[in-house]
């Protein structure tokens, strides 16, 4: 079964919110400063089953050692949050496959 970010955030408690109700650029800096590796995706790219909303290039933080992903999560009335959560290795591979400008920090 494929990962569903919305469902995961509703039903699990193993995620961490690094910032909430932020502007997109602020959230972007948080991700870039937090994760050991950053991959960039296009607006609307699907990560963990959800369309990623934002201004390009959109950073997705990758921690392969801990198998975690850090990503922006935007809602119209609540601004942008940054969510850090554990994922299966295959989800990290999926992000690598759609990254437009892979960059190592």
């Amino acid at each position, binding site marked *: 079964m494929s990962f569903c970010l919305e469902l995961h955030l509703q039903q699990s408690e193993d995620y961490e919110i690094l910032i909430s109700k932020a502007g997109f650029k602020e959230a972007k800096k948080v991700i870039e400063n937090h994760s050991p590796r950053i991959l960039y995706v296009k607006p609307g790219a699907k990560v963990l089953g959800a369309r990623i*909303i934002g201004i390009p290039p959109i950073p997705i933080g990758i921690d392969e050692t801990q198998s975690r992903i850090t990503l922006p999560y935007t809602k*119209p009335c609540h601004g942008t949050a940054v969510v850090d959560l554990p994922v299966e290795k295959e989800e990290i591979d999926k992000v690598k496959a759609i990254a437009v400008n892979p960059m190592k920090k």
Partner: protein
Amino acid sequence: MKKALILLGCPESPSQTPLALYTAHKLTKIGFEVTVASTPSASKLLEVSDSEEFYVNKKIDLELCLEDLEEKEYDLLVGFVHKDAAVSYFVTFYHILNTKSIAIVFEKDSDLLEKFLNDLKENTDATLISARAYHNPTPIRVKIDKAFKVLED
């Protein structure tokens, strides 16, 4: 018939709902089939304001619309932008649809208005309609009339 998608942001700004109905009606008169994508709360405001669906008869949940959206699915994107998140949503819809786009940008704070406009200029080739507006929709309505005259011609 050409298809237009109107993208609404958070309904916090009192100008958004009347401007959305006004814009939908203008586009319908020009000959577009209009769909409005919005949050559930913005949709409720439309439902109450236009209970007979005279101005808007096609509404879709913003998240559902985004999930299934495909390139060139609409001939025109019109987005209401009055928050940072609305900039992100507009840019995202713009990049997925890759179609003619108009952003209607309004904010009472001139610094925020300028920031939103700069972000949109840097990340899209959309036509930008902007004014300092919050309670009073007239400044932005006047600019909508002017910009949409081009679509009519």
